[in-house]
């Protein structure tokens, strides 16, 4: 069993990050290649200034009008996305493992704080799920794939939480945690989670069309 754990916490982590990062790079390269081949005119409208202007405006919490109209959703979404990165990166247990492997470490969250933040991520996902079930215009767009996406993000957090508290089935729980985390990371470039890198591109394009051609704001 230890050999299996060694694999999923050793080589498999390498494989995961390789797929995750190369996948994201590949995704960008393919998009740019496709743009060059089929829609090169896009570049004649894109400007760095207007791209960054739009991305910046949309990065300021509650600045775009859309965010002011749906403050609860955006509020939850901001916190969820922030914690999605923050908690795993600054979790003591993760840093300890990195330290064992590479002897580098950085400041860590207190376990008790990380615990609360994990609950917040979970609540965020519950909120997304309930919203999908209750709000008609969201429900209309939702298919089981959307719930699956929520589940994929939720699993590493749920299993991590249960394992940390050693509620039950400790060893299987950690294994499930590691594997579900790896699955999530691997899926990012190949699923709707790729919005992580595609969103800035679509935003930049719309920002440029609005700023450069239409002389109007897009937020």
């Amino acid at each position, binding site marked *: *069993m*230890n*050999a299996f*754990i*060694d694999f999923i916490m050793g080589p498999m982590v390498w494989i995961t990050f390789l797929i995750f990062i190369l996948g994201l790079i590949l995704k960008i390269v393919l998009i740019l290649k496709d743009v060059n081949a089929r829609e090169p005119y896009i570049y004649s409208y894109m400007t760095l200034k207007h791209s960054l202007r739009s991305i910046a405006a949309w990065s300021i919490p509650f600045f775009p009008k859309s965010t002011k109209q749906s403050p609860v959703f955006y509020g939850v979404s901001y916190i969820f996305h922030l914690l999605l990165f923050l908690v795993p990166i600054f979790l*003591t*247990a993760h840093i*300890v493992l990195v*330290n*064992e492997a590479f*002897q580098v470490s950085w400041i*860590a969250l*207190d*376990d008790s704080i990380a615990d609360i933040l994990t609950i917040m991520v979970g609540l965020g996902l519950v909120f997304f799920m309930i919203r999908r079930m209750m709000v008609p215009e969201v429900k209309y767009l939702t298919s089981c794939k959307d719930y699956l996406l929520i589940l994929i993000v939720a699993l590493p957090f749920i299993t991590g939480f249960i*394992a*940390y*508290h*050693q509620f039950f089935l*400790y*060893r299987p729980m*950690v294994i499930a945690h590691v594997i579900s985390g790896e699955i999530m990371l691997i899926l990012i470039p190949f699923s709707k989670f790729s919005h992580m890198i595609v969103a800035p591109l679509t935003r930049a394009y719309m920002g440029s069309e609005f700023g450069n051609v239409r002389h109007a704001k897009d937020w």
Partner: protein
Amino acid sequence: MKNKIIFLSFILFLLTAVVAFSNTELERLDNSDFQKPQRPGAVFEHDGHNEMAGIDDCNVCHHVYEGKKLVEDESSEDSSCADCHSLKAVVDNSITLELAYHKRCKNCHFEQNKGPVLCGECHIK
């Protein structure tokens, strides 16, 4: 039927109580050298562990290094780990105390394919 459920719940309650109280008796490593430890000290029963693992030589764990070289045949069971492994990495010894403990135990458990290797398997709550 109702009685059965009440009886079963009672048994269950007793069982949890027993488990909960017996847990407090675990033998743990002294973690007082750490500032603000995030987890309880690792559960470690020295003699039982060595017997089970078949370790006779003390210096398997209580090693002595000179510079970067392991000194064979010498052992350090008289000094505490923290004497050599400080909380922060220093020039003389880059292996911090935490790392020393983790690597000492886990590397061996991985090599032997036996024993606890996950956080909560030693730092039992």
